[in-house]
């Protein structure tokens, strides 16, 4: 099969000097909110541009505007947008439909919800192909199989008949990319294409995009919050903040020597997997506070039974941080919950200071991943933080308020915010509330389950710093459960790598990261996107070696 462009004459005429994408003074307003405010950029044919920014910077809004997707939604779009020769603002509905999918195709963030759950993947791709060509049903279906095969779906003929829920996350994203390739577009717009994926799968998808670009010569507009993902995949990068361009230039220049304060701040906040942790004062204590041995937890019954955690033993020492890192489904959350006592182990035991534990107690507390759903939206944050105090028998309202005020102050919030509700806080502030609630019980150990994965990098850095501070002041032991290898290295004294319910490698953080012994650990580390394009290229080569062809 061939994916080369069959350029016809008109296309060739048009594209001699015109850029693939020209955006001039673009503004997009939703009511009084200006999501994009006077943005201009060009993308040459076959080039790759990364739009990088934190949540709310307007980067995804720009991506949608390129295909005219704001039409009919009530958003006000100003400025001019030209994509592959089409004036998006002035185009008729029919012209827009001709642009979408045929000349410029979009790959979305969440590959599960982005495909229709009721139809076979191959049929969905064929449908898109038939919209833009006069192909017969049969030819369209064959084309679907072709592109699925092209993006590396094994046994594409058979798998094209599967529905999206029968695919893994990475395969769904491949299927979406296949849909994008179906009509051989000149431009691929990828909106956070790897955010929902595990780091090793992310690396595969980024490598796939890289190869496809080399082979087809299509342009790429990559929207991402992850500077590392951009560094891996694009030539130019445009840093956005509050709907405006902060800095725009070649990747190496912008990321290597940023000219703007915000870009420097953003880069400084990005945790790096290469960087050693600044030695923590508290490490080196020999007292074991929490000890787990032979932990096993099964879910399901009979034939469906499987062990989410299988024979895990670990120790946590006073004042240290134990990082537990693993991909989705590795059992790290289940393990964390057993350590706190939220889940009873099927086998094995957890000891706190030598005594057998069962159930939740004040000494070991937890901070949860999602600060939105782990706080009751109908209760003020003060009431939520006061719960552990009341549970311990504090009845004096004055003292409760005083203590909650102290805790709020301790995590960097205004003590007067007692009576506010969770929705009045930002994500980072809510996570601070979650930490204050865990502190209220005066614990000696806090298990943090993905405490920063829902946060932007700058907020993430602040919350990580807060946890470090609290640890030093209060002599807390932390168990830091996360999928992000760089964040875990930043905070941990010792690290355990989990895979399929077992710990495959553990030891002092620097040893594990600098000299990984287990092949899986090596694979994980090679998959981490690098900020330096040269390191990125080197890791890509390592990945090619590690993956059997």
């Amino acid at each position, binding site marked *: 099969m061939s994916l080369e462009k069959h350029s016809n004459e008109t296309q060739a005429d048009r594209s001699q000097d015109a850029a693939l994408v020209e955006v001039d003074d673009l503004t997009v307003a939703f009511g009084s909110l200006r999501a994009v405010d006077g943005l201009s950029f060009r993308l040459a044919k076959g080039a790759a541009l990364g739009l990088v920014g934190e949540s709310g910077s307007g980067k995804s809004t720009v991506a949608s505007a390129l295909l005219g997707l704001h039409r009919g939604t009530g958003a006000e779009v100003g400025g001019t947008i030209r994509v592959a020769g089409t004036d998006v603002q002035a185009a008729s509905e029919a012209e827009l439909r001709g*642009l979408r999918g045929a000349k410029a195709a*979009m790959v*979305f963030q969440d590959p599960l*919800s982005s495909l229709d759950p009721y139809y076979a993947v191959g049929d969905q791709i064929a449908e*898109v192909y038939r919209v833009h060509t006069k192909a017969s049903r049969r030819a369209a279906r064959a084309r679907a199989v072709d592109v699925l095969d092209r993006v590396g779906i094994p046994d594409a003929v058979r798998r094209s008949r599967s529905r999206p829920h029968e695919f893994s996350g990475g395969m769904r994203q491949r299927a979406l990319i296949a849909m994008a390739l179906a009509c051989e577009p000149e431009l691929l717009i990828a909106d956070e294409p790897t955010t929902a994926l595990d780091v090793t799968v992310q690396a595969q998808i980024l490598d796939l995009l890289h190869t496809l670009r080399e082979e087809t010569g299509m342009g790429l507009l990559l929207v991402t919050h992850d500077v590392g993902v951009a560094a891996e995949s694009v030539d130019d990068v445009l840093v956005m903040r509050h709907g405006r361009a902060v800095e725009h230039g070649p990747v190496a220049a912008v990321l290597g020597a940023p000219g703007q304060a915000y870009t420097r701040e953003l880069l400084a906040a990005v945790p790096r997997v290469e960087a050693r942790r600044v030695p923590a004062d508290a490490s080196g204590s020999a007292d074991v506070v929490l000890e787990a041995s032979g932990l096993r937890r099964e879910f399901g019954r009979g034939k469906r039974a499987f062990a989410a955690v299988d024979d895990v033993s670990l120790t946590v020492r006073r004042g240290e941080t134990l990082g537990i890192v693993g991909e989705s489904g590795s059992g790290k959350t289940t393990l964390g919950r057993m350590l706190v006592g939220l889940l009873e182990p099927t086998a094995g035991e957890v000891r706190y200071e030598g005594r057998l534990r069962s159930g939740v107690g004040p000494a070991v507390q937890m901070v949860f991943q999602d600060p939105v759903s782990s706080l009751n939206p109908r209760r003020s944050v003060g009431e939520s933080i006061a719960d552990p105090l009341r549970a311990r028998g504090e009845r004096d309202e004055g003292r409760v308020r005083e203590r909650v005020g102290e805790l709020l102050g301790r995590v960097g919030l205004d003590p007067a915010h007692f009576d506010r509700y969770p929705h009045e806080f930002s994500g980072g502030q809510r996570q601070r509330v979650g930490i204050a609630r865990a502190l209220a019980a005066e614990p000696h150990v806090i298990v943090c389950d993905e405490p920063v994965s829902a946060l932007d990098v700058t907020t993430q850095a602040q919350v990580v710093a807060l946890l470090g501070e609290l640890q030093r002041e209060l002599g807390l032991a932390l168990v830091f459960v996360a999928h992000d290898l760089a964040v875990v290295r930043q905070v941990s004294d010792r690290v355990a790598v989990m895979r399929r319910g077992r710990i495959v490698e553990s030891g002092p953080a620097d040893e594990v990261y600098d000299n990984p012994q287990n092949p899986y650990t090596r694979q994980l580390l090679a998959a981490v996107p690098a900020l330096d394009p040269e390191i990125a290229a080197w890791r890509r080569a390592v990945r090619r070696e590690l993956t059997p062809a």
Partner: protein
Amino acid sequence: MNLSGFGGFVARRVVGAIVTLFAISVIIYVVFYVAPGNVAQITCGPRCSPAQVHQVAEQLRLDDPLYLRYWHFLEGIFVGQDYSTGTSVQHCSAPCLGLSYQTDQQVTELILAKLPVTGSLALGAMVLWLLIGVGTGVLSAWRRGRPTERVLTGLTLAGTATPVFVIGLILMIVVCGQLELLPFPQYVPFADDPEQWAWNLLLPWLSLALIESAKYARLTRASMLETLAEDHVRTFRAYGVGERSIIGRHALRGAVAPLIALNATDFGSMFGGAVLTETLFGLPGLGHELVEAVKVVDLPVVVGMVLVTGFFVVIANAVADVLYAVADRRVVLV
């Protein structure tokens, strides 16, 4: 999908339906036969002497313990029963639901005679309510936010709020009385004259369908709007798929499973629930017969009718579960 898993799922549903039917039969039997009132006296009539009442009680085996009577009842259903009606002995072959206290007629035959009427009513009404309801729902989802949708939403609200006898009466007065377009409905068996069967049932169908379709319009519209807000619809828009395909192929598909679930229960309950329509249009169906039987405390008929209704509801639900699983393959089969 795993075929053996699916077969097992169907088998489990069938077993579940049988257990449910059995439970229903016990409850209905106990509730009706333990109800206060001297059944023998009522059956015999007010002018019976105590001796005659006693004789009736013996014939009806009213002095046997309840579990024994229930056992005989089950026996009748599975193997048949002999009944002595004073002088002669009547054989009632399986499935036997007993004899009417009033007429000594076999309940099974009585129900079988009325079933085609109610079945015709339910089937035709269902086709119409699906057409009207789903059509209205699709139209309002397509024209969302425009005057068309507002008018349709108002109409469906009115439909939900109007009792069937009001619509039926109005239709009958206008269509049959004023315009004389149709005859006043009178049941003609399908086998006798299919054309007359349809013409006569048209008004009852319409009245039922207009009321019922409101629910379907709302459900269709709600599911479609929900689907239209989902990410995968955005995907197809971003790939240049036209609004017609998005509505007709992607949005409507999401409404199929809930529609099946609702329709199956509605269709099942039509067999016991169309009392008002049958009475209004004078159709001699199950609902009509049930009302008559309740009036004279003809317990075997009442019990038989309620059981048959329960049977249809349970079967319809089991069928709905299976169809639902076929319509939405993501359903975990348990």
